[in-house]
Structures are given as structure tokens and as C-alpha cells.
């Protein structure tokens, strides 16, 4: 049976900034969790979730030995720390936005 949980149940995240580029790393708690997010968390999903924020392309890098994915969101910081009029100029809270992402996974084997 399909279960709907949040990414927060599978992984933890940290967001960083360089210029107008935000990167968000997603680190799964277990190998099983990693296989779920590796399948589920595509650049397209990230792009959709940050529709308003990420104006440029999204890239994904994998570090399976650390159960980690790294997403790079171009044009996502309102011009970057030194120019942005936003409250969170670094986009540090973007990682918390990502953790609220509903994850649909059929194969976690733990039931609803």
C-alpha cells in the first residue's frame, strides 16, 4: 500500500549559497531511505517544488556512499546575498521547505 510521508521522515538537509546559486544537500538516514529518495527526488521534482524560487535549471549530484544527493538550484537567490531584498538572503531556510515535500513511496515496507 502506498504511503505518503514527508521528506523529513527520510532525510535531513542543509542549504548553502554561492552568488545567485543555492545548493541543497539531502542526506538519507538509512540505505533504504536513500534508495527511496534516489528514485523519487529528481531535478524535475525539485524544480517544481521551488517553482517560484528557482528560476534557472536544477542539477543533481549523487554520493551513494554517504546516502546523499546534492541539488544545485541556479538563479534562486534573488541576485545573491549581496543584492537580494529578501528576508532570508542566503536561502538557508530552503532546506526546511524541501523537508516538507510529500514523498510517495510504495516500497518502504513499513505500512502507512
Amino acid at each position, binding site marked *: 500500500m502506498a504511503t505518503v510521508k514527508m521528506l*523529513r521522515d527520510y532525510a*535531513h*538537509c*542543509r542549504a*548553502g*549559497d*554561492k*552568488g*545567485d*546559486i543555492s*545548493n541543497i*544537500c539531502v*542526506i538519507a538516514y538509512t540505505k533504504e531511505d536513500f534508495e527511496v529518495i534516489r528514485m523519487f527526488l529528481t531535478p524535475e521534482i525539485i524544480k517544481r*517544488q*521551488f*517553482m*517560484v*524560487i528557482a528560476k534557472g535549471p536544477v*542539477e543533481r*549530484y549523487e*554520493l551513494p*556512499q*554517504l*546516502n*546523499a544527493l*546534492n541539488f*544545485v538550484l541556479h538563479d534562486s537567490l*534573488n*541576485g*545573491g*546575498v*549581496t*543584492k537580494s*531584498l*529578501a*528576508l*532570508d538572503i542566503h536561502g*538557508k*531556510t*530552503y532546506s*526546511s*521547505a524541501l523537508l*516538507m515535500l510529500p514523498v510517495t513511496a510504495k516500497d518502504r515496507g513499513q505500512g502507512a
Partner: protein
Amino acid sequence: MKTIKIGTGAGYADDRIQHGVDLVNYGQINYIIFECLAERTIAIAQQAKLKDPKLGYNNWLDIRLEPILKKAKAKGIKIISNMGAANPQAAAEKIASIAREQRVEGLKIAAVTGDDVFEQIKQLDSVMIEDGKKVSELGIDNLIAANAYLGAEPIVEALSAGADIVITGRVADPSLFVAPIAFENNLRLDGDWTMLGKATCAGHLMECGTYVSGGFYGDPGIKDIQGFDDLGQPICEFQSDGCFVITKRPQTGGEVSIGTCSEQLLYEIHDPARYITPDVVADFSAVTMEQVGPDRVSISNATGHPRTSTLKVNVAYHDSYAVIGEFSYGGVGCVDRAKLACDAAIKRFKRLNLPITECRTDIIGYNSLFSENTYGNGALPNEVRVRVAVRTSSKDYRQRGIIANEIRSLSFNGPYGYGGPSVVAKDVIAINSVLIPRELVHTTVTMTEV
């Protein structure tokens, strides 16, 4: 096997003063690093230096170093910091005067200069990475400073000359750590790419201080961290074979775990296989971690590839002015009233035809961090704060005053029940980057002895 221990005394400019004091007193370390130079800090320091040639270094230089200078010298702990900002030589002289006051003798203080490439950049008129335009298109009068990211090389030179303290301006953050590792292990800075990759990995994990030891990590219920009131400073134990352990000062709050280290490894990293620094193109893509004891994580398999032929330069310029105002609404309907106020702000600016190039309205507590389109569980907050942020290029301070006043007076001329208005206006000093051929950057190490 030789092991050196490096502690992070500050991971950013506003970090706790006590970190450095505790590390020197109780840390049992060989080196202490203070990373205190944010992107645009050097531009602001440059403006201070123009007003007074004895200024332009970090404001907290004396506050951070006064309590540790004597003890660090007695224990043989060497200090490396970018607190020199726009004026490392003046910072070195300030440290020398503190040393004389404290009767610390035999102290060698090295100032590293050469990161200031303002004249070269103006002549080269290079193309900027951000928008492909030339530097001159920013307007020559708007340019404030240009500083190249130096690598470990001049710091190693200073340490080789016997420096107890090395004070720099702009240096790539990991390079502050790479330098003592390279010096102690006689690394070849133009060829030991694998070891430089490992040292850069260590530096990257350490450069943000407590970010690797529980800071910016604790999340009750899922990542429980205790002791934020006394978070332990990270310590890197780097062996001459390139293996290293990240740990923290014992009997302190926080934790060093695979979780904290993984988050920090990828912090501000794009392609993990190509982390470009002045020293090396570091490769973290195969890094593995093992928890080898409580608060002890062993890091392996970082590597590196030959450094690039260019250095990155931050070009600081005056971009615009920002006026930012806030006021609060509470109780039932507060979000609707806040939305009404935001709408009124935008319409008001249009009505007055004010010289505004960008206007952004947010409702803090509702949509200010991520757009409401991104997320939201539908529950409405009990109180919100309206934030109106405006950019103007008008050099007429009266126009900026009018904009500020229009935001302030929205509280009076807007919806029911505002509270706590505040408005700030500031210069927007922005940073763009260019690349400069390495050979055009000449560094100098100047030693001051006490």
C-alpha cells in the same frame, strides 16, 4: 606518524568570542584558525581604510586576540586568520601593539598582502561571471574594491619564516587550513594534488566552525542536539598520511557525527567532484566517513586534481540603495490586513511615481521565507509582520527619505491595528566575480617582530 591538531576559533565574523579562548585554554591544538571575512566585508573595510589608513581590518581583531595572545605563544599554538581584511599590515601592527602591552616577547606576526587587485582589474576590464558584462559597465565610480582569493602559498611562506601569527586579507576559506597542513607535511603546492585535495576537504569541513559540530543542525525530535549554550569548537586531527578525524573539544555541547559531517561536506558545494579552490580542484565525490568514537568521525578518500590557471576575484561595487520597513498585525484576519497593506504599498509607490527599481513585499509568518505557492499546511498564523523592501538607484538622499516615510506612514494610512513599525535604509554594496590569470597576482609576506 605525525598528527597536527587544528581548531576553528571562529567560523564567521560574528562567531562567539569564547570559542577562541576555550580552544587555546583547553583545546590541546597546534593551530587555531579564525575565518572572519564574508564576501562583501572587505569592501566595507576598504572604505574604512580610505578614511583612515590605519583601519580596514576586522573590528573584533583585538577583542578576539587580546585574551589568547599570551597563552597561545606560551603553548606554541599558531594563529592564522583573515581578519586583516583590507589592511593586513595595519592588523599586524595592531597585534604587535597588543603584544607589547601584554609583554609577550619573541612574537613573529606575518601580514599577507597581494589579494588587492583593484588596479589590475580596472585595467583588464574582465568579463564578469554573473552576467557576462565587463567590469567597466558597472560604472567606474561605483567600483569599491577587487580582491583575489589567495591560496595557501603565502601562508606557508609565512609559517616557513617562523611566523607565530599569520594575518591575511582575502584567502579562500579552506586554504587557511590547507596552509598549516601543507607546511607541517612539506606538501608540494604545485604537485601534491591528492594530499591538497584531502587537506582542502579537512579545511572545508572546518571552515564554518560549529557547523560541523552540531551548530545549524539540531532539530528536536529528529536530530536532537544538546548544549547550544556551550557548543564545542571543532578540531581536526590531520595525519601525515592524509587520513584525518573531525572531533570537538571534550565536555562541550553539540556532536560530531556522520550526519553533521555529511551536511557540512556538501555545504556550499556544487559538483562534489570539482570543488575549485586556489590550491587544487578538490574531489569529494568518493569521500567516506566512519564514526570511530564518540564525537569522532574519520574522513577518507578525498582527492584532488591540478589547480586551475586562474584565481577568482570578488569585485565589490555600489549597486543601489535599499529601504526596508516592517510593521505587525495580530489576531483574526491579520493575514488579510497584511495583504491589504502590501497591496497599498505597491499602489502607493506607483501613484507617487517614486524612483524605485524593485519592490518586494512579504508577510513574515506567512510567506516570507518560501513563497506560499511552495508550501503551507493551510493553518493561518496568529500574528504576522509586513515587510516592504524597496530598491532605488536615486543618489538623492531626500528621495530615499520619502520612500522610507511612505513605508512608515503605511502603518498610519493603512489597515486596522498595526504595531511596531521600523524602517532601515542602507547602501547595497554588491559583489560580482571575475577570473584573473594567476601570474598577475603577486603576494608579499611582511614580518613584524615584537
